[in-house]
């Protein structure tokens, strides 16, 4: 496959990335095509453009902990959007990683949670009705994760189906943390 064909990559800047693109894509948790394909500008809303443009400044300043997509729609899935953004970041050598909630919980349980510069969790909160529902220790561990990442100046991008249900199931303090320190983007 010609990874330069789509025009997002060029041999001068990305030769070493392309030489090992499968391994890097695996590390990021996306298919290699997300790295080699340009980002569709129509995919991003105003808040997202603002947040991701200034990503490096957020990381350096440490005032914003991340971005939280909020909203629910039967036809909507934020995963492809996160894959595309993670691919865009990888092209610019930002250490991004997409992980499902189950994988995150497994790493937290094993105490070997990676520390990417930008962590995407496309199913961070799903209500019990949507197939979510966590045990108490898992909720506490997730709260710790968000705080620890903020302490280290690492950014986290989350998807939350409903703020109200999040407060009900994860607790009000969880919602306060997100509303207080994350930029919000509606889906």
């Amino acid at each position: 496959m010609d990874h330069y064909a789509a025009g997002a990559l060029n041999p001068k800047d990305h030769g070493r990335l392309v030489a090992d693109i499968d391994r890097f894509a695996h590390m990021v948790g996306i298919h290699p095509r997300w790295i080699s394909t340009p980002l569709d500008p129509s995919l991003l809303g105003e808040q997202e453009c603002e947040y991701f443009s200034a990503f490096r400044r957020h990381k350096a300043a440490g005032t914003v902990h991340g971005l939280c997509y909020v909203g629910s729609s039967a036809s909507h899935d934020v995963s492809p959007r996160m894959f595309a953004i993670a691919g865009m970041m990888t092209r610019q050598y930002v250490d991004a990683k997409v992980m499902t909630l189950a994988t995150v919980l497994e790493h937290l349980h094993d105490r070997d949670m990676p520390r990417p510069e930008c962590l995407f969790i496309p199913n961070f909160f799903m209500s019990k009705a949507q197939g979510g529902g966590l045990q108490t220790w898992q909720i506490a561990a997730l709260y710790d994760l968000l705080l620890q990442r903020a302490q280290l100046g690492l950014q986290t991008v989350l998807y939350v189906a409903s703020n109200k249900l999040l407060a009900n199931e994860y607790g009000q303090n969880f919602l306060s943390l997100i509303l207080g320190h994350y930029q919000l983007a509606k889906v």
Partner: protein
Amino acid sequence: MSYGKSFLAAILAEGSVSALVEYGKIDQLFKASEIDAYAFVREFVLKFGALPTAETIETHTGQMLSPATEPASYYRDQMGKRHIDLTLRQAMKEAHARLTSEVPDPDAALEIIMNGAMTLIASKNGKQVSDFRHAKAAILVDYASKWKEKNEYGLQLGWPYLDDLSGGLRRGDLISYVGRPGQGKTWSLLFGALHGWAKAADQDDAGNQQSRMFVSMEMDVLPVQQRLAAMHCQVPMSHLKQATLATPNLVKMKKGLSMIEGYAAPFYIVDGNLTATVEDIHMMALQLKPAAIFIDGGYLVKHPFERDRFRRVAENADLMKKNLASLAPTVVSWQFAKSAGKKSQKKGDPVDLDDIGYTDAIAQLSSLVIGIFEDDSVASVKGRRIEILKGRAGETGSFRTKWDFEKMDFGQVEDEDVGNLQLV
């Protein structure tokens, strides 16, 4: 020939105040005809924090220094032997007189011999044993030398974080670079070796002796030369290796390589396959007199009789500290054990000195130990993480270095990039 005056001339030629300090107060090794010059040099250093010139010594003491063709350590050894010889002869003469007098006194003769021997032993161990009551001179001379001498006159490795921390590395320092295979030890070592050498040449600073001896245990001379050329001339290594340099880069490289022919300080590259033991490297260093020694692949250095590889590496680290670092600051690359690879996967579990492969001796003997790490992410294409695992005074910390094979830049990342991401 006056060993004492040649010793002083060699100290002046080496230009290092700290070298004089390291020998301690050694008045007893000088003859009456030499002591005034020595006393003047010590007083001068204590007062002004710099070495006087030979002319100044002659003006103030009337003594002209003898020519020095060998390192100061050679003359110091000869002076030590001379001192033993003279002291023993004197003691034996006095003892003989007691034994052959009208009333022979063997006890007194024995005491004279014993006192003579004890004085010599104390003198011989002078560097190891020090009386704190007489520490003033050593401390003030060292202080003044650091205050006076420019930092860049020590060995600097090109990463400001590390250079500020070390204050310039000096004789006696063993510096260890540790990394897993393929994580950039050789490039980092070459970058460090090239930095001070090229900087001194750029500044046309003949007084700043920055010659190098680079011993490669893994690579032939040509690949090392190619890497150095690519770094120094800032042309892509891959294109140089494949002979596909663009014309401007080829011109740039030719110009750069022509320029270095005029540099004052030599940069010796030694094929480790030919100088396999520490003793071989030591002999070569005595001959070439480098201002800094670099050994790429310290764990591959051979030992004359030790076959067990763990003990061999421990023995060699000890020999490098004793024999090589005493000639010039010595930078050696080593490997992390496999345990480091497993640890780095567990992100919260830092790699430390216990993870250095083969032996604890490396950490114990090194003044400075730095770990070179490649993160498990795409960021590793553009950089490496350097961790200070051991500082001289317990300092720790970390920084990132560039890993740019286009511009051949392996310098420290000093300002974090906060520019906009391109949303394309």
